[in-house]
C-alpha cells in the first residue's frame, strides 16, 4: 500500500525527514507518533501526495509518486481519505454538502449516492445535524464530519493527522472506534497522534503497529501492539 525507501524531505538545506524506510501493507493499522517537529505531518503529507519526497522513493497504492502526472495525482487523491486536526471544511456549505464534496468534485451524481450519504451521516451520528453549518457543530462532531467526508469515495486508505487532538477522551474514543471499523472493512489506516493513551486503547480491538519519528527519522518502526 505504502512503501518508503530511504525517503527524505527537505526545505532547502533543512532536512525534515531522513532515510525513512517502511512498508505499510494494505489493510494494516498504524499509529505515527513522535514529538512536535519530528516530521509526522510531513510524512503524512507525502503519503497523501501533498508533498513529494526530495530524496529516496515513495510508492503509494503501488505507484511511484515521483513519476505521477498532475492528473494521476488527482486520481490517486480520490483513493486516499484525509482527516486533519483542523478539518478544513467549506464553511458556507452544510454538513451534508461537505460530506458530499468529494463526489461533487469528482463529477459524480450526488443523487445516486444519497443512500450512502445518509448512511454515512448516521454512521458518524450527524444525521440530526445534516443541515447545520460546520461552524455550528462541536469539535467532536467536526472530526466525525471529517471522517465521513474522507470515506464517502470509498478510499483504499485513510490518513489522519491528530484527529483526536481537539476533542475529549470520550469523543476521541468514538473517532477511534470509527477508524477501527473502517480498518475491519479493509481500509489501511495511518493515524498520527501524540496521545499514548489513545494508542494503548486500541489493544485487542484490531492488530496495529506504532511508528515513532524522532528528528526526522524512524526510531521505532512497526512495533506491534
Amino acid at each position, binding site marked *: 500500500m505504502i512503501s518508503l525507501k530511504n525517503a527524505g524531505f527537505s526545505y532547502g538545506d533543512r532536512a525534515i525527514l531522513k532515510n525513512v524506510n517502511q512498508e505499510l501493507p494494505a489493510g494494516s493499522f498504524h499509529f505515527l507518533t513522535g514529538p512536535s517537529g519530528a516530521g509526522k505531518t510531513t510524512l503524512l503529507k507525502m503519503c497523501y501526495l501533498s508533498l513529494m519526497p526530495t530524496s529516496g522513493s515513495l510508492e503509494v497504492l503501488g505507484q511511484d509518486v515521483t513519476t505521477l502526472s498532475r492528473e494521476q495525482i488527482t486520481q490517486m487523491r480520490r483513493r486516499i481519505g484525509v482527516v486533519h486536526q483542523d478539518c*478544513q471544511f467549506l464553511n458556507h456549505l452544510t454538513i451534508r454538502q461537505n460530506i458530499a464534496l*468529494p463526489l*461533487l*468534485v469528482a463529477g459524480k451524481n450526488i443523487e445516486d449516492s444519497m443512500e450512502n450519504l445518509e448512511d454515512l451521516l448516521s454512521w458518524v451520528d450527524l444525521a440530526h445535524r445534516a443541515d447545520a453549518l460546520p461552524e455550528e457543530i462541536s469539535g467532536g462532531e467536526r472530526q466525525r464530519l471529517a471522517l465521513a*467526508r474522507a470515506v464517502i469515495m470509498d478510499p483504499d486508505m485513510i490518513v489522519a493527522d491528530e484527529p483526536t487532538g481537539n476533542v475529549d477522551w470520550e469523543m476521541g474514543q468514538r473517532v477511534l472506534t470509527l477508524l477501527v471499523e473502517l480498518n475491519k472493512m479493509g481500509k489501511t489506516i495511518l493515524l498520527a497522534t501524540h496521545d499514548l493513551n489513545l494508542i494503548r486503547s486500541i489493544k485487542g480491538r484490531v492488530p496495529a503497529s506504532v511508528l515513532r519519528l524522532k528528528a526526522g527519522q524512524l526510531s521505532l518502526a512497526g512495533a506491534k501492539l
Partner: protein
Amino acid sequence: MSLNPLSFLFGDAASDQVVPPKGNAAWLTAFASAAMAFIAVFALTLSLAVGRLADYWSLDLARTATVQIVAEGDDLMAQSEAALRVLRTSPGIESAEIIDKSEQLALLEPWLGSNLPADTLPIPLMIDVHYGADSPDLNSLLLRLEAEAPGASYDDHSEWRAPVLEASQRLRLMVGLSLVLTAIITVIIVVLSAHSALASNQNIIRTLRLLGARDSYIARAFVRRITMRSTFGAVLGMALAMLVVVSFPAQPESNGLLSGMALSGVDWLYPIFVPVLVGISAFAASRLAARYHLHSVT
C-alpha cells in the same frame, strides 16, 4: 489545465457551490463592472452622436451654401432678385430661397436675445442655397454673381466646416480610445479581483485539491462566479446608463451635441453588446488569472 468555454456556459453549475457566495471581491467586481459599463455606454452613445454630427457636417452641410447681400434700399432688392436669378438658373442648384427676417432673428436670438430691434438692426439679406445631385460649377457661379450682384458674397461653409469636421473626427477618436481604456481597466479589475478571490480562498483551494478536485474544476468554479458577477454588474450599469440616455431629447431641436445624444433605431442595440463584451472579457481575464494562480500554487 483545460477549460472549455462551452462547459462553462452549459456545464457544471454545481461547481459554483465551492466558492463562498460572499467575499471582499464579490461586490467590488460587480460594482466596478457596473461603473465601467455605465461609462462605456456613455462613451458609445457619445461616439454615435459624434458620428451623426460628423455625417451631418460632411454630407448635409456640404450640399448647402449661403449667399449674403449687403446693400441698401432699392439696390438691395435689385441685387437680391439678380442673385436669385443667377442661382436658380445655375446647373447643380436645386433651390435658392431668401431667408425671411423672422427666421434670421430666430437664428440670432440665442446670442442677442428675443427683443431685437428688427427694423433698425442692419441685418444683411441672406439666401439659403441647396445643391442638387451634381454640385454647381463654383467658378462660373461666382463670376456671374460678381457681375450681376456685386454686393453678394457666397459662403459654401467650407471655411468653418473643415476644422469642425476635423474636430469631430478627433473627438470620435478620443471616444474610441476611451472605450478601449475602459475595456482595459475592466480587464485589469477582473484580473485583480480574480487574484484576490483566489488568494483569499487558499484554504478552500487546498481542501478541494486534497479531495481530488482538478485545477480545471477549481478554476471553472471561480471563473464562472467572477464572470457572472461581472456580467450582472455590467447589465446593471448598462441599464442605468440607458435610463439616462433615454432622458435626452429624442428629436433634437438643433444639431447641438447634447441634443443629438439620443439613440434611435438600430443604435439602441449597440449598448447591449457592452455587458456581453464585459462578460467575455471577464471570462477570459479570470480564466487567465486562475490558470496563473493555480499553476503557481503547489
